[in-house]
Structure formats: C-alpha cells, structure tokens
C-alpha cells in the first residue's frame, strides 16, 4: 500500500534529508577523531570541527522545517508528537559529537598512546550503533519490519561500548598520567560513551513508536 498524501510525502522527504545530514555530521566527526588519533594526518582537525558544527546547525534547520510542516496539521496529533520526540532524541547524537570535538579543541587534549587503540574501538562501535539507528529510522518510514532486529543489535553495540568505556577508564586510572589530565580524559571518554547510550535510547523509542502502530 503506497498511498501517501502530498504533505506526508514532504515530511518523508525532509526526514530523509535530515538523516543524510546526520550521516554527514557523523562522517566529519569520525574524520576529526581519526585526525586526533593520528590515523589521518591529511585532515585538518579545526576545519572538520567547523564542518561538524555547520552540519549540526543544518540538522536543526531541517528539524524546524519538519516541525513547521507537521504543525500545519499534516499528520494526526499522535504521529506529530512521535516524530518530533524522535527527532529531538536523535538530535542529541550530533550534539554529543560537537561537545566531544569542542572539548578536544578548547582543552587542547591529546589522546595518550596507551588509550588510542581502545578509543579507536569505542568510536568505531559507537559509529556502528549510529549507522544502525539511522537505518532503523528509515525503516520506520518505509516498512518497519527490521526495527526489532536492529534494536537487538544496537543494544549489543551499546553494551560493547560500556565495556570498552570501563576498560579505558580503568587503564587511564591505572596509569601514571597527570591526575588533572586523567579527569579531562575521563570526561571525554564518558561523553564518547554517551553516543552509543543515546543511540540505544533512540532505538528503543523507535521500537515503541512502531509497536504503538501494531494493535
């Protein structure tokens, strides 16, 4: 059944644009972290931070467009509430990206060698969780059949991130790094861990939205 009203198709197109933009934020964030970890020397960290901010602002603009369109009574009130709540929840993910990059930039943090491999793993698993959430959102606006399956995978990724996060913090506090730097790095690692936590929260929310439509 592929019948949709014109305005509903517009909502769908805007959500797709929002997701594309989120993927751009995620990509620039990953590249910025890679450059911090010394994986990609060709990238200029500052430029990538600015680019991340630009994409993040664009995400806010698209969200506002969706909000304005929906409140012109294009959807049922319940659907409007669900979509807005979902977008606000997803929006926390690029916000965490920006906070992490700003901490690195403003506090001039360098990741110590003994943490690099674990941080790289934490970022990689977190990005996988984000990818899966974006697929889940697409699924919600397409068929909704893979939502529970993706929910399980995201949940596992989140648990995996928790384990890595604890491992990094243990390594950090077992080391003889300057205690002040330890606190700074711990804050950074916890924020990195928040990305997968938020992905998990969004995933659960999508599942509930989908379940509500099954009677």
């Amino acid at each position, binding site marked *: 059944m592929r019948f949709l009203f014109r305005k509903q198709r517009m909502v769908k197109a805007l959500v797709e644009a929002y997701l594309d933009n989120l993927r751009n934020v995620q990509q620039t964030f990953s590249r910025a972290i890679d450059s911090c970890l010394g994986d990609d020397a060709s990238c200029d960290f500052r430029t990538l931070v600015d680019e991340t901010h630009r994409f993040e602002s664009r995400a806010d603009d698209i969200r506002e467009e969706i909000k304005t369109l929906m409140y012109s009574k294009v959807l049922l*009130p319940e659907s409007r509430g669900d979509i807005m709540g979902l977008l606000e929840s997803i929006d926390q993910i690029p916000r965490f990206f920006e906070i992490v990059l700003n901490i690195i930039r403003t506090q001039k943090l360098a990741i110590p060698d003994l943490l690099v491999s674990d941080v790289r793993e934490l970022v990689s698993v977190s990005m996988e969780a984000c990818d899966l959430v974006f697929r889940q959102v697409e699924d919600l606006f397409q068929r909704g059949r893979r939502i529970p399956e993706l929910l399980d995978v995201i949940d596992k990724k989140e648990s995996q991130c928790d384990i890595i996060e604890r491992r990094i913090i243990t390594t950090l506090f077992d080391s003889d790094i300057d205690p002040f730097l330890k606190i700074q790095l711990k804050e950074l690692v916890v924020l990195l861990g928040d990305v997968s936590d938020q992905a998990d929260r969004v995933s659960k929310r999508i599942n509930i939205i989908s379940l509500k439509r099954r*009677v």
Partner: protein
Amino acid sequence: MLPILGGVFLGWSLGANDASNVIGPAVSSRMLRFTTAATMASLFVLMGALLQGRSGIDTLSGLTRMNLHQAVLASISAAITVTLMTIGRLPVSTSQAVVGAILGIGLVNRHIDMTGLGKVVTCWVGTPVGGAIMAMVVYRTLAIVNNRLSLNLLESDALLRIGLVVASSYGAFALGANNAANVTAVFVGAGHLSVPSATLIGGLSIGLGILTFSKRVMVTVGSRLVRLDPFSALVVLLAEAITVHFYTFVGVPVSTSQAIIGAVIGIGLLKGIRTVNKRTLLSILSGWLLTPIIAAALVLAMLRYN
C-alpha cells in the same frame, strides 16, 4: 406549521446531544476540525433520514394514539429533557426521552401498544451490549488487518485519517436513518405529517443541532470516559454506526449514545477495565435511567396544566 416547531426543537436537541457520538472521537482526538466534522455529519444525517428514516417512524408512531396537541407536548418535553442533559454534558438517549414522553401520553389516553413497547425496551438493553460486542469484534478484526498490512508510520497515519472520515460519515448516516423517527414520529402518529416530510424535517433539524450546539457533550464521550487512541476511536465509531444501523433495519430507533458508550466500554474491556472512568460511567448510567422518567413526568405535568 407551528406545532412542528416542537419537533424541530427536539431534532435540534438530538443533534446537539448525539453528534458527539458520531464525530466526538474524531474531534476530541483532534483528527478532524469541529466545523469540518459537524458540516459533514449534518449532510450525512440528512441523507440517512431521507433514505432510511421510514421504518423507525412506523414503530414509534404506532406506540400510542395521540392528537396533535399531545404530539407537540410530547416532543417539547422530550426536547427539554435532552437539552437539560446536554447542558449537564451527559450523552443521553433521545429515544428514551421520546418514548418516555409517548408513554406519559399513553398513560393519560389509557392506550399503549405493549408489543411495540416491549420491542423498543428490549432494543434499549441490546444497544449498549451490542455496541460493546461489536466494538470487540471490530477491534479484533481491524487489528488483524492492520498487523497484516504492516504499514509504516505515514501510511498508518493516512489510513486512520481516511478510516475516521468514512466511519464518522457512516455514523452520521446511521444516526439520521435511525433517529429521524424520534423527532417527527409523533406528528406522523397524530396524522399531521407524511413520512417523507417527517424524514426531511427530522434530518434537517438534527443537522441544525449538530452545527450549532454539539460541542459540549463531545468532550464527555471523546475524552472523559476513556482516553481514545486514534485506532480505538476508529473502532468505536464503526461499532456504534454498525450497531445503530442494525437497529434501523429492525425498525427501532435506538440511542447512539448507548451504542457508543457500549463500544467505548467494549474497548475498555479489551484493554483492561481500569482504563474506564467509573465515575463518568455512573453519571452517564444515571442519566439514562432518569431520561424516560423525566420526559414522562414533564409531559404529564404539561398535560395537567394545559
């Protein structure tokens, strides 16, 4: 023409009270604007009255013999009763008010068709029960269809909106078909109106009530008794419309209020009775009990002082 104004008043009060039953869930769950829903409902009520309003008129006009003066008093007392209940924000049965008033006249005239009365009263009991059972059946059936279709968020939204407009229109049609009799049957019984003109006047006056004074009761049905999600709102409307339409074929005007309250309770039973607001339910039940008594008492008082 002047005596017919009593019937128009009754039709207006019926429309004001019963519109909540056909468009209340849609308006209360903010799926349709009140003005749009009310206009649409008025048109379908008129269609229902004109196309299928005859059978209920035949039943009610045969309940007792009355003259034009008594017919006017019967419709005025029923209208006052329903209006009082509307002011009290209670969805009541116009059928009960009308039959209560007719029985008041019947007591004075010492003539009541007990067979007809038995049929009417049996249907009164059957209406809320039927509404509840129908809601459960419709809920289960639509749930299977909905889950099989596996719609995405936007498709599900679109389908619910379309379904709601269709169900509201059908509900309004059933209201007109079934309840036009309540408004003008006494005048047919008194030999003052033909059946076609009775259905036309009935339909028009009910439509007028919907457009002008129906917002008050809507809140009670739509949100105070049970908070309805869009899917349940659709089920309740369909169940109510089917139940009332069924009684149109039986030839007994029944209450859309009773059908819809029954349907809402049916949904409540399916989802767990705790979702039903018992206090609101009790006040609605007491309204149902009082309606025929008040209408009969009013008409007796009017006859005495006239």
